[in-house]
């Protein structure tokens, strides 16, 4: 996936929204490069179980680096339907492909209006420039 085509949270998760066969919105979530560059040296990733319900702006997991621990926040209200379970064991490769192999969870969105707060790439770039 190309960063330009993704949506973003203010806490640096990227989001790709697609529609499944039953018309459900499925949000794929990962951590943006800006956050990975700031954290550096990842050592631990805690992802949720499939079936857990998540809330927009609330933590679904944690990522820990040598420097600090950060919450991973859900972009939408919904339920976790898929988890990239192998990712915690190959964290060193996460920065190589954060928007592809580095996806973390897929959320079946239960309240589409919760997606409305996400930023498009241009708005997100502006946020990153302000924070840099």
């Amino acid at each position: 996936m190309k960063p330009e085509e993704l949506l973003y949270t203010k806490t640096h998760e990227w989001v790709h929204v697609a529609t499944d066969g039953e018309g459900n919105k499925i949000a794929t979530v990962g951590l943006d490069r800006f956050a990975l560059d700031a954290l550096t040296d990842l050592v631990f990733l805690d992802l949720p179980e499939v079936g857990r319900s998540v809330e927009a702006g609330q933590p679904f997991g944690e990522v820990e680096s040598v420097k600090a621990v950060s919450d991973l926040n859900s972009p939408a209200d919904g339920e976790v339907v898929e988890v990239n379970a192998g990712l915690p064991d190959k964290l060193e490769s996460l920065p190589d492909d954060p928007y592809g192999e580095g996806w973390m969870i897929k959320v079946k969105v239960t309240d589409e209006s919760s997606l409305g707060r996400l930023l498009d790439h241009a708005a997100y770039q502006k946020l990153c420039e302000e924070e840099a």
Partner: protein
Amino acid sequence: MASEPARTPLYEWHVANGGKMVDFAGWSMPTHYTSIVQEHNATRGAVGMTDISHMGRLRFEGPGVAVFLAELLTRRVADLGLGQIRYSLVTNDEGGILDDVLVGRYHNAYGQPYYVMVVNASNRAKIVAWIERHLTPERASRRGHEIVWNDISSIFAMFAIQGPRSAELIQPLVDVDLGLMKYYRGEQVRILHPVAKRQGGLLSRTGYTGEDGFELVLGADIAPAVWEKLLELGKPLGAVPTGIACRDTLRLEAGMPLYGHELSEQINPLQAGLSFACHLKGYNFPGRDALVEIEKNPLPTVRIGLELSSRRVAREGAAIYAGDRRVGEVTSGTFSPTLERPIAMGYIESEFSTPGTDLVVDIRGHRESARIVPLPFYRRPTQGGTK
């Protein structure tokens, strides 16, 4: 303090070379340039060079200095030989730690002795005020015991050059034989670089990483050119610039306390495991009487090292439990790049402080098992024959 953070003489260099700048103790300092782990490993394996110009440097001279320092510091310094350096503490009247410092005795080009005290950046103003309180103008001008002292921090820069190849790196730039410089020794050296124009610097075999290494104090005006020269000479040796983030992981592995974490005015040197730095007999520094009293009883809490078995890092503030009972708290923790597991230091009730004791740390609601281990976590393979 909402004012702009201060800048070291290397500030422009850090920014131009990818340093991730943060406000640290009122100074704009680079946390890292590439990655904390890379910089950490470079220091353990070759050389890491850190700008530590933010640290405070106080210079004392005059016939009364040795006696005055003995009245100020917890550790005997009156018998310091030329070029000798000691780790000491400054305590308040209750025996709480105001700062931990290095004091060295040097001779200038005219053979006059002087002392340099290196203090933590975060404590510089406090220590300067503490000295002003004890070294009144009358005290400083007592006939035959005069003392002149200055805060020389801003006119000098300071580099930590740490790692097994640091002597090899520095040798071409100084006029003394580093093979003869022992650990915790220092010397006024001439810097062999055109920009230095016969300017001297203070070079000591000291550090905060657990490796062999040096600290160099030199004029702020020549610091950037010498820094770049060192990096150029160091390239074939594997030397890299290192930020303050790996300075923290390195000192943690080496079991060294950090002020504001393991040390504070609420902590005394005995519980911090620093009784080696306190000479209580025959001395009368502030806090001495309090420490004599504290020494008579068992210490309620003591500093310990913890190793964790999971990969979740126990950081400052995490509570330590023995069963359901809260028995201590983590004061610093990180993921150790050398040991590849989380390590932490903290304070714990003395009865649980024996190495091998199994405990639990509450990390953001996750109960992770931890074990008390002896400090340091890491000891370098050889002492380089310098100790």
